[in-house]
C-alpha cells in the first residue's frame, strides 16, 4: 500500500460503495419504518377510540307528546295495576300522534315494550314528581332499548337479528317508520356524563359520572399527600441528606419503587390498608392512599431534578448574607423550582388517574359506582369506582352494549389526561428558566 495508488475518480461509485450506500439507505428506511409504525399505531388507536367511543355520547329516544288529564291521573292512581293504565294512556297518545303524522304501521303493546321498555312506569314517575304537568301537553323523550339503539348504530341489522323476547324483526318496521317521521332521533347523551353505573342488562343507562367523582376524590388524596411528602423528601435528599448508607438506601429504594409493578401496590393496599388497618373497602380514600405511594417516586424524581437545576450560586448568595441553610432552601431554592415541581406533580397525577390494576384489588370494581356520594366525608369513605376501573368493569361485562360505554369512558378519561398534560406543558413553557 505504499506504492502510489492508481487514480480512481470519486465521482464514479465503485460497486462496493454502491452496495454500502444501498445498505445505508436500507438502514435509514428501517428507522423511518419503526417510527412510522409507532405513528400508525397511534393513529389506529385514536381512530378506534373515536369511532367506537363517540356513539356513547349519543342516545336514541322517541319523542312523544302526552297529555294527561287530572281525571285520568286520579283514575290511574286508584287502580291496582297502575303502570298498565299509564301504558294504555301512552298507547292512546301514540296512536293519535301516528294518525296526526299520517303514519300507518302495525304495532301492539308488546312491541312497544320491546322498543321502549316499560313506559308506564316512566310516565307515572314523571307525573308523580311533576304534578303541575297534569293537563298540559308534555313532550316525553323515552330512551330506546339497547338493541334498538344497536339497530340505529348498525350493530344490529335485519340479517343478523334473531327474533327473541327482546326484539323481533317486525319491530324494526315500526322503528323505520318512526325514524323517517322524526319521532325517533338521536340526542346528546348527558346521562352518560352525569349518570351512575347501571345493571348488567341495561347498558343504555350506564353513566360515568359517579366514577369521575370517585377519581376526583382519589386525586385529592394523592395531591394532598404526595405533593407535601414528595417535596419534603426531595428537599431532604437533595439539600440536607448526609452521604451515608441510609441515604443510599433511600435513593436505591426510590428508583426501584418507580419500577415496581402497580399490581404489587394493590396487594400492599389490600393487606395494609384494608386487612390490617380496617379502612373501608372500595373507598376512594384507600385508592388514593395506594396511588399516593405509587406516585411518590415519580414526584420525588422530578422534584429533585428541578431542585438540582437551581444553580448553587443562588444558595451561596442566600447563605452569604447570613440566611440559614433552611431559609435559603425555603425562601429561594423552593420558589424557584416550584414550576418544575408542579409540572412533575401534574404528570404524576395524570399517571395515577389512568392506573387501574391496584384499584381492582381494593375492590373498586363491580357495581360500586351506583350512586353519588352524599357529602365530602362519604366521598372519601363510601364505596365508589374510578374512571379506569369503571371502564374495566364495563369491558368485562357480557353485553356488547357496554363496550361502547367503555370506549366512551376512555374518551372521557383521555380528555382529563390531555387537559392535565396541557396544563403541565403550559406551566413548563411559561416558567421555563435557563440559567
Amino acid at each position, binding site marked *: 500500500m*505504499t506504492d502510489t495508488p492508481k487514480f480512481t475518480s*470519486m465521482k464514479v461509485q465503485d460497486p462496493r460503495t454502491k452496495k454500502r450506500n444501498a445498505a445505508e439507505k436500507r438502514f435509514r428506511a428501517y428507522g423511518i419504518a419503526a417510527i412510522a409504525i409507532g405513528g400508525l399505531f397511534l393513529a389506529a388507536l385514536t381512530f378506534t377510540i373515536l369511532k367506537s367511543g363517540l356513539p356513547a355520547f349519543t342516545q336514541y329516544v322517541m319523542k312523544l307528546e302526552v297529555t294527561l288529564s287530572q281525571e285520568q291521573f286520579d283514575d290511574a292512581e286508584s287502580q291496582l295495576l297502575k303502570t298498565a293504565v299509564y301504558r294504555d294512556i301512552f298507547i292512546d297518545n301514540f296512536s293519535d300522534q301516528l294518525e296526526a303524522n299520517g303514519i300507518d304501521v302495525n304495532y301492539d303493546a308488546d312491541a312497544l315494550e320491546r322498543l321502549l321498555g316499560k313506559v308506564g312506569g316512566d310516565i307515572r314517575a314523571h307525573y308523580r314528581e311533576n304534578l303541575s304537568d297534569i293537563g298540559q301537553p308534555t313532550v316525553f323523550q323515552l330512551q330506546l332499548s339497547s338493541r334498538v339503539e344497536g339497530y340505529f348504530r348498525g350493530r344490529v341489522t335485519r340479517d343478523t337479528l334473531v327474533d327473541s323476547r327482546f326484539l323481533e324483526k317486525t319491530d324494526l318496521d315500526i322503528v323505520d317508520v318512526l325514524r323517517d317521521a322524526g319521532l325517533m332521533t338521536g340526542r346528546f347523551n348527558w346521562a352518560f356524563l352525569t349518570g351512575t353505573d347501571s345493571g348488567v342488562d341495561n347498558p343504555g343507562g350506564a353513566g360515568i359520572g359517579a366514577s369521575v367523582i370517585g377519581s376526583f376524590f382519589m386525586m385529592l388524596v394523592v395531591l394532598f399527600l404526595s405533593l407535601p411528602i414528595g417535596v419534603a423528601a426531595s428537599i431532604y435528599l437533595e439539600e440536607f441528606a448526609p452521604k451515608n448508607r441510609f441515604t443510599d438506601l433511600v435513593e436505591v429504594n426510590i428508583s426501584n419503587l418507580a419500577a415496581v409493578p402497580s399490581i404489587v401496590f394493590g396487594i400492599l393496599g389490600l393487606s395494609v390498608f384494608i386487612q390490617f388497618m380496617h379502612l373501608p373497602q372500595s373507598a376512594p380514600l384507600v385508592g388514593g392512599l395506594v396511588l399516593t405511594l405509587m406516585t411518590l417516586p415519580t414526584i420525588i424524581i422530578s422534584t429533585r431534578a428541578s431542585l438540582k437545576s437551581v444553580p448553587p450560586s443562588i444558595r451561596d448568595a442566600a447563605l452569604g448574607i447570613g440566611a440559614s441553610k433552611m431559609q435559603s432552601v425555603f425562601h429561594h431554592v423552593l420558589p424557584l423550582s416550584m414550576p418544575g415541581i408542579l409540572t412533575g406533580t401534574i404528570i404524576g397525577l395524570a399517571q395515577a388517574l389512568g392506573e387501574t390494576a391496584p384499584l381492582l384489588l381494593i375492590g373498586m370494581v363491580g357495581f360500586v359506582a351506583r350512586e353519588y356520594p352524599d357529602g365530602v366525608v362519604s366521598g372519601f369513605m363510601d364505596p365508589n369506582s374510578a374512571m379506569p376501573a369503571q371502564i374495566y368493569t364495563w369491558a368485562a361485562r357480557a353485553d356488547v352494549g357496554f363496550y361502547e360505554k367503555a370506549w366512551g369512558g376512555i374518551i372521557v378519561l383521555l380528555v382529563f389526561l390531555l387537559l392535565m398534560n396541557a396544563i403541565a406543558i403550559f406551566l413548563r413553557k411559561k416558567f421555563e428558566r435557563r440559567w
Partner: protein
Amino acid sequence: MTDYKISAKDVQVYYGDNHAIKDVNVDIEDKTVTAFIGPSGCGKSTFLRCLNRMNDTIDICRVEGDILLDGEDIYDPSVDPVQLRAKVGMVFQKPNPFPKSIYDNVAYGPKIHGLARNKIELDEIVEKSLRKAALWTEAKDRLHAPGTGLSGGQQQRLCIARAIATAPEVLLMDEPCSALDPIATAQVEELIDELRQSFSVVIVTHSMQQAARVSQKTAFFHLGNLVEFDETDKIFTNPEDPRTESYISGRIG
C-alpha cells in the same frame, strides 16, 4: 492532473451567519508534511475538516469555493464523501479508539472498505499498520485487549494505525499531540516524519516548535484568513507578513 495533491481555491466557510474561513487558497504537495498554525479560533481546524468533508456532519456549516483532490472537486454533488474519506484519512485531537479490541480498531477501516480478501490479508494489513504506527512491539501480545486500555500516547498511535490501515492518500491530523505528554509527542512526531514517505500529511498544531520540527510547508491562519503560506524554514526565519512575525515572536495568539 495538477502537480498538487490538494489545491483549494477561494474557499469560504460559514457557520450559520458566521463567516469562519475567508478566501483561502492553498496547494498541498504530495509526500510532504504541511502544517497549519495560528491562534485559537483562527479557522485552521475548520479548514482541515473541509478537506475530507468532515464538516458535512455539522448541519449549519456551509462551504463555498473549490477544493480539488487530484484535480477533482471534492464538493461536487456526485462525489461520495465515503469514498473521499477513504482517500483522505483523519486523526483527531483527542485519541478516540473505539470500544473494541486493538485488532478490531485497526481492522475496522479495511473491513468496511473491503481492502482484504481474507483473514490472512487482514492480519497482514493490521500488522503492517501497527508497525508503521510504531505500536506493533507494544501491542502484538495484546491485540485482542480493548483499545481503550492503552495509555494516551499509545491510543493516539492506535488511531494513527487505524487511519493508515485504509491506505489513504492524504492524512489529516488535527492537533494530534495536544492531549499527549512530551515523550508520546516525540514518538508521534517521529512517526509523522516516516509517514511522509508514503503520503502527504496535513497537520494542525498549536505548537510552533512542532510545526518547525515536522513540516516542510507551513500555513499561518489568522481570523479566518490565510495570512502566509510558504516553506517552513522561510516562515519561521523570514516571514513576509508582519502578522506572521508577531505571532511567531509571541506577540499575538
